[in-house]
């Protein structure tokens, strides 16, 4: 009724959540990633400072600006060499459909980039369609296969994920089809929970030996990445570097997931902007910045986010959710099917149900047909290409002939928080706040 006021504390959505818990006895599980309105400092709180009189810009569409990206130069005999600094993150076959996995592999290969297996082992078609494939070794070890590992171009030892650091993922029963169950050695239709801890090591000292085992298993040929959910990033990055990582991946709290308790997506980890700043600081403090490469992930949406992350210290970025959106995630098509699962285009985070209306996060053969591999691959290629052009445009405007030359000095902070977190001056002040 007009004039009635709802509570700011017990807002209508909170009331609905409490009553749903009271009625079902279940906590909320869903996919996608945090839905919170971002009130923390983000890449949007930074702006680039292009060349004027103090620096000379490169011609925006003509002059060469290298995007070549080399990762794993510390110990591996064969560092991976990519044409661009934007890569596809690990997402499992199981969370994603077969068509989605193959489309991502083909799209990444066409763009000169890499893709990553995920928490379910490698698909043969994924390897065949990849140019550079990163093989994830996760706590669950689902589908672990030494032969697949030895086919990979890099190994990623995953300690945690940005969307849910400190816990394992879920693959609910509707997605544990006969093929997925066989791949993961599970009963068909079971609600699969991935463990939070690796089965054969616990702390950073043991991890040193695990990294050495992975090197022995791959003849010291390929880089070893260590992936961290962004939590105590400063300490974790130093420990991962000490453990012998060639490359450290830091995944911020804006990262996505196929399914996890909603509270993890909303209330754990630190934002990607803060994570990249802490990671760089950690590597600088132990004298390994530049020697250990840094990949940043978690809510990277476009070339602008990627360029800002690189200016702050990342050598490359992973995208996950953005690549799925390129495949038509949340697109206003098949709208009746969105409604059938209680979602709507632009407001669908129902990856956990396995009823993805656009055929990405499903194992249903009929739904999967809605994602045509070649068309999907082309869209992924296009997104990676445009993101790279965006990074190049900003780099040229800042006078850089290589996107990896972007640096904190190329940016200013729009907010006090961003200034304090990133250690760069607040606009209009020439002061770094909090230092």
């Amino acid at each position: 009724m007009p004039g009635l006021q709802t509570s700011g504390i017990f807002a209508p959505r909170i009331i609905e959540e409490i009553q749903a818990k009271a009625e079902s006895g279940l906590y909320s599980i869903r996919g996608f990633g945090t839905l919170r309105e971002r009130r923390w400092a983000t890449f949007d709180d930074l702006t680039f400072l292009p060349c004027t009189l103090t620096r000379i810009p490169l011609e925006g569409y003509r002059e060469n600006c290298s995007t070549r990206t080399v990762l794993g130069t510390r110990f591996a005999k064969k560092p991976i060499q990519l044409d661009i600094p934007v890569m596809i993150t690990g997402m499992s076959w199981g969370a994603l459909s077969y068509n989605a996995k193959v489309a991502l592999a083909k799209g990444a290969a066409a763009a000169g980039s890499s893709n990553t297996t995920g928490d379910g082992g490698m698909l043969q078609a994924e390897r065949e369609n990849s140019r550079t494939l990163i093989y994830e070794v996760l706590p669950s070890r689902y589908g672990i296969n030494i032969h697949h590992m030895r086919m990979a171009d890099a190994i990623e030892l995953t300690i945690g994920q940005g969307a849910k650091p400190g816990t394992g993922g879920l693959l609910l029963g509707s997605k544990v089809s006969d093929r997925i169950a066989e791949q993961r050695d599970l009963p068909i239709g079971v609600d699969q929970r991935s463990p939070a801890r690796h089965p054969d090591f616990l702390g950073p000292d043991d991890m040193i030996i695990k990294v050495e085992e992975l090197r022995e298993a791959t003849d010291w040929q390929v880089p070893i990445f260590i992936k961290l959910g962004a939590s105590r990033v400063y300490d974790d990055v130093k420990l991962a570097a000490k453990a012998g990582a060639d490359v450290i991946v830091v995944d911020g709290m804006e990262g996505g997931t196929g399914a996890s308790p909603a509270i993890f997506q909303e209330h754990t980890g630190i934002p990607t902007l803060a994570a990249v700043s802490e990671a760089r600081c950690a590597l600088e403090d132990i004298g390994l910045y530049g020697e250990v490469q840094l990949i940043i992930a978690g809510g990277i949406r476009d070339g602008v986010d990627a360029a800002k992350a690189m200016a702050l210290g990342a050598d490359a970025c992973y995208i996950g959710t953005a690549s799925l959106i390129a495949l038509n995630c949340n697109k206003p098509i098949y709208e009746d099917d969105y409604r059938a699962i209680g979602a709507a285009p632009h407001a669908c985070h129902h990856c956990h149900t396995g009823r993805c209306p656009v055929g990405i996060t499903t194992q249903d053969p009929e739904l999967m047909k809605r994602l045509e591999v070649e068309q999907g691959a082309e869209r992924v290629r296009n997104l990676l290409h445009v993101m790279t052009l965006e990074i190049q445009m900003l780099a040229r405007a800042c006078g850089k002939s290589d996107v990896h030359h972007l640096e904190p000095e190329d940016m200013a902070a729009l907010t006090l928080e961003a200034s304090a977190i990133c250690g760069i001056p607040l606009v209009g002040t020439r002061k770094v706040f909090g230092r």
Partner: protein
Amino acid sequence: MAEIDATGRTSREINAAIRQLIADSCKEITVRNPGARHNLAVAILNDTHIRLAGSAGYYCGGLIDGAAIEIEGSAGWGVAESMLSGTVRVRGSAGSGAAAAIRDGTVVIHGDAAARLGVSMKGGQVIVAGDCGYMAGFMAQKGTLIVCGNAGEAFADSMYATVCYVGGTIANLGTDAVIAAMDPGEADHLEETLSAHLPASLRSTKPAAADFKKVVAGRKLWNFDKREWRIWREAL
């Protein structure tokens, strides 16, 4: 048969020597003085028989496919982890996470196994003549886990479809673990398995197969969101 003396050599050098012998078609290799080094004989991908004349550190025989690894002493953490097939035999005792995440093959431990034996195992069989520590069988998915002695706390916690047998006492069962009756003929099969893999000297001190306790998942955790499962069943 070829021999490698590990004295003064790193794990990397020892493994390189093993791989060179395998490349030269050697089928039986003895590593003398292994000195409990880590990561020995990992990722051996054929049926070579490798005998370590001493103890091994972490991850010995990890990620193998088809090899037969024999450790005359004890093994550190994660022995045989993630193996695809083959046999790993530890004549002494094994550290934490023995046979973690194995997908097939056989792991035999003559002594005791520490914590998290067979954690996340996905197939194969694990046989321990002695006792095992806490959380053995945690989140184990498939395969068979046999402990002839006593099992520690939280045994068989949160399992999927692994079947466990314990000859001695169980300190306590983990979440969702239940004692089940053996099916007709199951004790005979267990006896055959034990006889096939354990020396008679170790078998003679253990209870009869029919007296082992069988432990499986109670399956209450298999589908923890039953409301949605009803929907999924219709969707499937």
